[in-house]
């Protein structure tokens, strides 16, 4: 028995170490390795991690909880941080999502990045990302989580700016990094506060100590709010969401893995992980719910007017992340994790499908230049359709169950939040089907040359798509609500972690059925509406400069968020930098340094007159100097 546990510990440590190993091998030999070896190594390492995660999952399901302490990392008298991993149902679920979806995206990337000269570099970064994400998920204290948190931020930066020769892409990468850093500051402060209060950053210790604090105590509310600031940055919520749409500059598999399925959900995971302290802070929960719903609605309105296939999906991601935070905010922790999981499936699928379209059109991303791709890309069309249905919340696809669970909880919590959430789900159905119809139906609107080159993607890309499509269809069955006669397997699985008593829904079954019916019928109506506009009538969105009603203009320009930030933050910052440059740097600092130089020149100019070349003078000077020194020494 003992031996078996030790074995498991080693295997648990192997889950994050394998991608790290692969990263090191590829990263150190990226000029020498050929593409096949790199692809197999990178995907293979993640695949083995996935297998191990599955093994871990079954053991966790059977009731085990792994706490693997690799070594004592920081050990001072009062501050002890262990380099340790924790696998409980929550991290086990995240492990499956990260390694599972991560593996499929790695395989897909082999096809997608085939002709890119940075192929090896790409996979090195991807492996490093998976490693960091696994550390984030597995860490058993806030410091470990923070390492992963920063690691994924770094990889996100590296991969957004992957094509670093393009200045715009680099700017997008920097924007993502800086905005994340703002959030990270909150996370750090939250950690400091937790440490000062509890004297530890270990999850178990913190949560058990926090339990003795009264509900709503200032210190807990402050700490949770600060941690949530970190989540806002990482998970692209208002007001720090503008980096995510820009992050689409990276290669499409990156968008699928980092900016849809895994990294951006880290904030949700963090809040869910810290559930024990969040339930003690009702104020924070309200802030989370409001931030979530506002973000969901705002991003959805923007998505309606986007014409870049990846931008639509990016805003959709922001919107869905908003949903997850609504779930967290109204106390549906399982619902949020459920939506996180299904979202990882269908949004990764959507991004990869979009990648397949972009691949077929040799880089074209504007949906106004697409259309009629259904015949040329049948597989891509099918999987895209499935994912679109899933995200729109049509039963029995995955998105329906998770979204429904969040909405039902929101209804029980607050009718306004439910109303806005419902409206957002209508918008979601509309813009997703708008995207689908504009891309795949009617006739092709691109150039003749593009039409000539149209081709379905190779098998290495389409097979991961099909697997994800399957998951998008059946993924929801892990959480069939009781009202439908299911027993919500996910709820039972996660019940061990989310120990705080769930809020009593207080809804009759008929009420739940009515809510479900309203949501589904609304979504179907929106789909029909989208079909009428973009399918049947074949309307194509007008150019960016065309005249529009004020509201449409507001949505199209993303509520002018970037412009506002530019005016109130970026420009004053530039002005301040310019000021400091001109006054402090040029005048004061440079002045002092240059002053010393001029002093030396001036003094030299004066002193050179005593170098006459007259030996008699030198001798006299020497004797006088010796006399002076003698007197000086005598004086002492």
């Amino acid at each position: 028995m003992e031996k078996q546990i030790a074995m498991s510990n080693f295997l648990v440590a192997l889950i994050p170490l394998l991608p790290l190993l692969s990263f090191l091998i590829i990263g150190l030999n990226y000029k020498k390795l050929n593409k096949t070896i790199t692809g197999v190594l990178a995907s293979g390492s993640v695949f083995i991690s996935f297998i191990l995660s599955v093994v871990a999952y079954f053991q966790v399901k059977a009731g085990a909880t792994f706490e693997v302490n690799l070594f004592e990392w920081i050990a001072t008298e009062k501050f002890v941080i262990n380099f340790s991993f924790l696998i409980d149902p929550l991290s086990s679920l995240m492990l499956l999502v990260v390694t599972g979806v991560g593996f499929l995206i790695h395989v897909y990337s082999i096809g997608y990045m085939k002709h890119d000269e940075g192929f090896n570099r790409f996979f090195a970064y991807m492996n490093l990302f998976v490693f960091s994400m696994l550390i984030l998920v597995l860490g058993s204290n806030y410091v470990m989580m923070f390492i992963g948190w920063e690691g994924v931020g770094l990889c996100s930066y590296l991969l957004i700016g992957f094509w670093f020769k393009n200045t715009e892409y680099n700017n997008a990468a920097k924007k993502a990094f800086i905005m994340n850093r703002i959030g990270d500051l909150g996370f750090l402060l939250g950690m400091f506060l937790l440490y000062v209060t509890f004297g530890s950053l270990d999850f178990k210790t913190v949560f058990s100590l926090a339990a003795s604090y009264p509900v709503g105590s200032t210190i807990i509310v402050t700490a949770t709010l600060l941690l949530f600031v970190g989540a806002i940055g990482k998970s692209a919520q208002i007001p720090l969401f503008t980096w995510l749409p820009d992050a689409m500059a990276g290669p499409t598999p990156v968008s699928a893995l980092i900016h849809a399925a895994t990294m951006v959900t880290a904030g949700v995971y963090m809040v869910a992980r810290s559930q024990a302290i969040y339930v003690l802070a009702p104020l924070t929960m309200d802030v989370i719910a409001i931030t979530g719903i506002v973000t969901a609605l705002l991003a959805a309105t923007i998505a309606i007017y986007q014409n870049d296939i990846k931008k639509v999906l990016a805003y959709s991601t922001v919107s869905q992340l908003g949903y997850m935070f609504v779930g967290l905010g109204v106390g549906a922790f399982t619902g949020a994790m459920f939506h996180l999981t299904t979202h990882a499936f269908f949004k990764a699928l959507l991004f990869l499908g979009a990648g397949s379209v972009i691949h077929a059109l040799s880089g074209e991303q504007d949906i106004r230049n697409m259309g009629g791709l259904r015949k040329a890309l049948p597989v891509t069309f099918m999987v895209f359709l499935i994912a679109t249905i899933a995200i729109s919340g049509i039963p029995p696809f995955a998105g329906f169950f998770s979204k429904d669970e969040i909405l039902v909880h929101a209804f029980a919590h607050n009718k306004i939040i439910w109303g806005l959430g419902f409206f957002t789900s209508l918008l979601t159905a509309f813009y997703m089907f708008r995207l689908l119809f504009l891309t795949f139906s009617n006739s092709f609107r691109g150039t003749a040359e593009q039409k000539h080159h149209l081709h379905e993607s190779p098998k290495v890309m389409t097979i991961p798509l099909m697997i994800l499509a399957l998951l998008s269809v059946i993924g929801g069955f892990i959480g069939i609500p009781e009202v439908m006669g299911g027993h919500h397997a996910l709820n039972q699985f996660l019940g061990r972690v989310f120990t705080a008593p769930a809020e009593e829904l207080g809804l009759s079954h008929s009420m739940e059925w009515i809510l479900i019916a309203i949501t589904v019928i609304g979504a179907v109506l929106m789909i029909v509406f989208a079909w009428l506009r973009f399918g049947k009538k074949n309307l194509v969105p007008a150019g960016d400069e065309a005249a529009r009603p004020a509201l449409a203009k507001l949505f199209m320009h993303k509520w002018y968020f970037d412009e506002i930030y530019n005016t109130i933050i970026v420009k004053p910052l530039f002005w301040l930098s310019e000021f400091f440059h001109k006054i402090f740097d040029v005048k004061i600092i440079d002045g002092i340094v240059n002053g010393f130089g001029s002093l030396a020149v001036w003094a030299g100019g004066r002193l050179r007159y005593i170098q006459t070349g007259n030996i008699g003078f030198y001798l006299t000077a020497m004797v006088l100097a010796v006399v002076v020194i003698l007197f000086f020494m005598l004086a002492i």
Partner: protein
Amino acid sequence: MDTVVEGLKLMPINNYIILSSLLFVIGLVGVLTKRNALVVFMSVELMLNAINLLFAAFSVYHNNSAGQVMVIFIMVVAAAEVAAGLAILVLTYRTNHSIDINLLNSLKH
């Protein structure tokens, strides 16, 4: 030998100090005022020997032979210095037809 030392000790040490100081100052004034390089050298030798005298005197009065070692040492250095210095003077005379130190005010001519 002891009688010689005893004899030397009959004279007060101050006499030696005054004599060597006089010699030193004469040498110093010579160095500072003379323009003939040869005379300057001779003055320097005078200063060195003034010091030698003082070393020797103190060596006797303190019964410590270290002073005498120093005397020998200074003599060696002085001899070396004179050898090098005179060589320079010879060369200087060849180029300038003079050994006036005030002519030696530039690195090239």
